């Protein structure tokens, strides 16, 4: 009984426990780790990924996968930089999420009308979006050195980076949407049992499209923050972020089979990955071991959550 309860506890809070262990360990190993400055930097650096992972949680809970968010990020980066440079910097920042929303909706419509698995469809759209971004930018960097553009990624409010505030607000809103609204309930039902959801009168395709739209919106928002920070847009931005986002979601304990999960879990997953990274930097550890360590940690987390599924 107690071992069962312990296993359950571990399953539910494996990421949090790992985070706490890492924080304690790193605090002992290095004086510069447990400082407001370092912790805030970790959050700030990972705000774009956290925003994407939060939205990816909805896609995965609804039973989907989105491998195109990295490319949507690239589109957002190129478009916002170009518009900022040629039209208006504020408009550039504003349009990135809008473009992301549109591309995400395209994903959703393609998946539901062609009735193909989202995994396949988003591999294809990922190449298409990336291709468009390359063509639009002519393969070049688009530098935007204007304070009207870089405030979003660099400025602070109340001592904390705006990017962190945006991330927190986004995560809180998605948590509310998922847990308190009719839409959120439908997202869980589509991923939990699509046939039962259809027979309950839910238009499941609309729900799926909406999750992809939100994932696109998040990728666009994340790209606006990132481009604003480095004051440069390029088509190679966001490469690999889709896999990092998915890894963070799964690391957090959201089921890849759909129907269960939470936004905070994915944020925690992002933090865990970030802490491992930060630990390597702070301790001056051999970076050759970074991927190896990250992989082992992900495997351990998956092992814990799979462990309890057997009777």
């Amino acid at each position: 009984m107690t071992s069962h309860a312990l296993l359950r506890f571990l399953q539910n809070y494996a990421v949090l426990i790992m985070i706490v262990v890492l924080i304690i360990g790193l605090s002992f190993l290095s004086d510069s780790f447990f400082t407001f400055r370092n912790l805030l930097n970790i959050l700030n650096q990972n705000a774009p990924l956290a925003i994407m992972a939060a939205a990816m949680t909805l896609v995965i809970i609804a039973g989907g996968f989105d491998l195109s968010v990295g490319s949507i990020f690239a589109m957002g980066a190129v478009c916002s930089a170009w518009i900022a440079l040629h039209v208006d910097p504020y408009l550039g920042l504003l349009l990135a999420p809008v473009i992301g929303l549109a591309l995400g909706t395209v994903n959703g419509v393609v998946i539901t009308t062609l009735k193909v698995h989202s995994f396949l469809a988003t591999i294809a759209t990922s190449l298409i979006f990336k291709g468009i971004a390359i063509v639009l930018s002519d393969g070049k960097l688009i530098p935007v050195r204007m304070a009207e553009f870089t405030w979003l990624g660099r400025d602070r409010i109340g001592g904390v980076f705006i990017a962190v505030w945006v991330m927190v607000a986004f995560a809180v809103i998605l948590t509310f949407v998922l847990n308190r609204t009719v839409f959120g309930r439908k997202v869980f039902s589509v991923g939990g049992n699509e046939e039962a959801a259809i027979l309950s009168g839910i238009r499941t395709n609309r729900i799926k499209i909406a999750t992809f739209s939100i994932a696109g919106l998040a990728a666009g928002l994340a790209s606006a923050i990132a481009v604003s920070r480095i004051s440069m847009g390029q088509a190679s931005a966001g490469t690999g972020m889709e896999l990092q986002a998915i890894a963070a979601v799964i690391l957090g304990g959201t089921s890849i089979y759909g129907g269960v999960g939470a936004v905070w879990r994915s944020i925690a997953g992002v933090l865990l990955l970030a802490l491992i990274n930060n630990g390597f930097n702070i301790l001056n550890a051999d970076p050759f071991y970074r991927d190896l360590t990250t992989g082992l940690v992900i495997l351990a987390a998956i092992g814990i959550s799979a462990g309890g599924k057997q009777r």
Partner: protein
Amino acid sequence: MNSDEPGKPAIRAEGIGVSFAGVSVLRDVTLDILPGEIHGLVGENGAGKSTLGKVLGGYYTASQGKMEVFGRAAVGWDPHTALANGIAMMHQELQLVPALTVAQNVFLGIEEHQWGVLRTSEAARLEELMKSSGFSLDPHAVVSELSIADQQKIEILRALARDAKVIVMDEPTSSLSKSEVDQLHDSMRNLRAEGRTVIYVSHFLDDILAVTDRITVLRDGDHVMTAATEGLSKSDLVASMLGGGKTETPYPEKSPPKTSEIVLEARHLSSAAGAQDATLTIGRGEIVGLIGLVGSGRSEIVRAIIGADASTSGELVLDGEPYTDRTVAKSNERGLVMVPEDRRKQGLIMTMPVRANMSLPHLKNLSSYGVVKSTDERKRAVELIDHFQVRPAAVDGDVSNYSGGNQQKVLIGKWLMESPRVVILDEPSRGVDVGARQRIHEAIAELAASGAAILLVSSEIDEVLGLAHRAYLIDRGSIVEEIDPSENDEASVLSALFHHQSANHAKSLNESSE
């Protein structure tokens, strides 16, 4: 066949107990299973009959007690050692490889080979095996194209190929038609004639009584009795399954509809999925039954009515007005709802709590500006839980851990939350225990008495006759006859169905030869 001396048990269980996560599901079962007998295991859902079967087959480990198999202590008992000691298990869900042939499935894992290269002797080996055991199947037929009854024969042959002396069959008849059940019973008798033992786990008491030599009854994890089948009646079994000496639960009183007002009328409804020119009416306060053999198209007709399948022709009139372009969502809004037949696949969302399952179709009315009003939601869920006596009575209960009967109550409750006008119930009491079945029947009668129009689909003829005011007989997706349940019994309905079936068959043969 069996070299053991007569009277010596094939399996001797002493004080077997099983608990899962600290919850005891089987206690102190002491039982001898004899060689060459068909031994029935019965009990309500949750009584532990399947659990006991799985302990014998090595799928569950007993937490207490010990077991002897053919005189040897069974230690480290798992499916593999059980099989090595002559005990095979046939699961409710058949464990066959659909794309392989009969012979390949039978010899899966014990193929004859030379340095890994298969020999071509499988068909011949299978013929020999079938000759000695009285089965006949085409060795080269692909499994996915066979009926479930034939697939079960493959499972049995597979056990025989491994020289199993005891075969545990866990609810083998739940998806079989009547004639397929008879075939399976014949197979069991064949096995017995060879001196093998069959352990038959089922909740169909008539089946158990028809074929077994001895019966063991379990109740709430306790061993109630083991007795010779001869001299036992269905009511004896029900009484010992239920405890308090109750006889088989009667159906609730039928209250005749107060008006003759027609609520729903289907006219010549057809669908690509299998409804064929179906015409029927349901009145206010009326329970109308649909009776058909397995595969007769009962579910297809109701799916066409509700809009889950698109209709190709015909029309539906709801409250006197034609209702076209039906979808499940629109039907819900108009108070036309369906409780689907398969609660796991079509009904419940196992990853969501009881409350969220119940409110799912009604979120529009339980929210403001898209935000779920959780106080209202809880209140409504609590009312339904009380009304149906769902156990455990937890609003946030994890429905995936509930018994079949309680899951079914949650499912029916889900559809009754908004007092619908027309309720289609597809197999409302399939795989539920006696207590839940009774509560569900009462709820159906109450619902009709309150003025709802009810269409009841069930493969248990008895259930339809016991509850419905009128009933339609179904064959090949169309309605072939209307009957009065009070003037019919199970036997007369069955013979009528078989009569229509052969008439239809002859008709289609004529059509195809023309």
